[in-house]
């Protein structure tokens, strides 16, 4: 019995448990997602975070112990963000003649999303922290996390709002574009990429290569634009 308690003590603070749990649950969630035909609401991140949160609460493991244990994954986020230059580079050849269209959509979208996200949240009675976590929601997750922390927001809340934007785009985005009669495949891709980043981009690729390419390009450029302008727009 004593050994059992000592083992649990070791296990609940060991990086090995945090890593096994994270990688294992993600692997299972990824399988589930593939089996569902990549349904947006079964996005692996969403399932993994839900399952791990429940495990931590039920097993009574402290969040900071888990986060310390899994910190190697968080550290890799840095070079992985740098690596986003690669998809951007691959899509860059699409710009040429469509440059005004791409840049106009990205600038208007990034600017409007920050301003409206921040002020609408405050106006509806949200705290400054909530508003600052809302402001970068058009940027892709790793960038939004870093930005939220820079402007007194909270990284986990920023991820939550990024997910709402991504899932909304993937689930109802194409229907809304039909409703407002936008048929141009480039414009459809740009809307998905600017407002719904990575999750929107994988949905855009299901519509077609042009939609996907423009969405991927818009996602990269929007992440960049949001990081360049956010500190000047949010007081």
């Amino acid at each position, binding site marked *: 019995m004593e050994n059992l308690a000592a083992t649990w003590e070791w296990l609940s603070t060991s990086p090995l448990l945090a890593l096994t749990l*994270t990688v294992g649950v993600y692997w299972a969630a990824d399988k589930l997602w593939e089996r569902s035909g990549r349904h947006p609401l079964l996005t692996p991140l969403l399932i993994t975070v839900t399952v791990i949160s429940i495990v931590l609460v039920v097993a009574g493991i402290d969040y900071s112990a888990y986060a310390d244990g899994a910190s190697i994954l968080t550290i890799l986020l*840095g070079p992985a963000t740098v*690596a986003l230059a690669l998809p951007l580079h691959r899509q860059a050849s699409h710009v040429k003649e469509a440059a005004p*269209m791409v840049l106009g959509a990205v600038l208007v979208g990034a600017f409007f999303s920050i301003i409206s996200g921040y002020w609408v949240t405050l106006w509806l009675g949200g705290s400054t922290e909530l508003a600052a976590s809302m402001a970068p929601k058009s940027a892709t997750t790793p960038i939004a996390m870093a930005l939220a922390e820079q402007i007194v927001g909270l990284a986990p809340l920023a991820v939550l709002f990024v997910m709402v934007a991504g899932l909304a785009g993937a689930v109802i*985005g194409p229907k809304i574009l039909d409703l407002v009669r936008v048929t141009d495949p480039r414009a459809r891709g740009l809307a998905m990429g600017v407002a719904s980043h990575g999750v929107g981009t994988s949905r855009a690729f299901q519509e077609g290569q042009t939609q996907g390419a423009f969405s991927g390009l818009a996602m990269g450029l929007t992440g960049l634009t949001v990081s360049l302008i956010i500190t000047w727009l949010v007081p």
Partner: protein
Amino acid sequence: MIGGLALLLAFQLVGELVVRLTGLPIPGPVIGMVLCFGWLRWHHPREGAPSVRAADVLVRYLPIMFVPTTVGIVAYGPQVAAQWFPAAVASFGTWLVTFILVAWVAVWLRPRRPKQEAA
């Protein structure tokens, strides 16, 4: 692969140094991304080169790297629950308006074929 990882880390390192030395309010990895993009445009590594493989692997597994931070939502649960109304309405509402606005701006700015189409 390891060479590619070293290159990505070096870009991030330079990015972080630039941010600290200049006081720019931009995350270091974003500066690293810009530097890496410039390098890719200039160097054009072929598909399958070590830098390309390392970048592909990291981008592919990006979501797993946000898991630990996102789980932090358990610590903020009560705070979000108390503000569920502004959180839900602002996140969905401003997404919807941004989405439609971007689509319209894109249609308005799209390159038009010269003349013949109208004729």
